[in-house]
């Protein structure tokens, strides 16, 4: 019983959060643009890290 209550609270909390996020996105287009900027900056950051990391590969024998 207690476990079910915890699970129900957990799902209610998360569905609430998702609905709030959907509402925020649908009413504010700037946030969608910010998501696009965040995605581009993640891609740039990962590519920059890939450029820094060089892996040596050589034959032992």
């Amino acid at each position, binding site marked *: 019983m207690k476990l079910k209550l915890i699970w129900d609270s957990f799902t209610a909390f998360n569905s609430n959060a998702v609905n709030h996020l959907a509402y925020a996105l649908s009413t504010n287009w*700037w946030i969608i*643009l910010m*998501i696009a*900027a*965040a995605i581009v*900056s*993640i891609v*740039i*950051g990962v590519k920059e890290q890939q450029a820094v990391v060089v892996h*040596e590969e050589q034959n032992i024998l």
Partner: protein
Amino acid sequence: MPENNERITYKQKLTSQELGGYIKAVLLPIAVFFLALIVISRFGAFGKNIMAPVCCAVWGFGVIVALKAPSQRKTTLNEVYGMIAGYCAGLYVIRILIGLAANTSSEQLMASYEQALPQSTGSTISGYLQSMLWILAFITPFTFLGVLAKKLISFRKTAAKDRVLRQVRGEVDNSEHRRYSK
């Protein structure tokens, strides 16, 4: 004895520092985005009409500068993340302070300072904090946009100067050739 054709190769593995770099590159923008989203939602119309466009402008222009100036990519992105996180967190702290100051009366302030004050003092602090909120909401991002624009201009000037110096030295400028050969 059968010949073993399999090559034994030594391959360097990903170190924890490199892995940390990847994790930071992915998680930091996500964390900053969610912080901005939470603060914008908490601020209501002020967040929707002022903070969201400002954060978007700073982030978008930061990405453009990072793309245009490859040698300063990492520092530019880190500055943008720091700026947006600091902006949102700072404005949120001022919002909390406005809430705290809203219920203080001039009598309470007189008691806390042990000093006679004008009757209108109670609302002065709240007004001062609101002015601070409005000033910071505009001045901080516009100053940062100016810094980014200056960074971009000085980078382009340096790049142009380098190109001229290469021409003076008589080096072959094959950047066009490289562009078309790709």
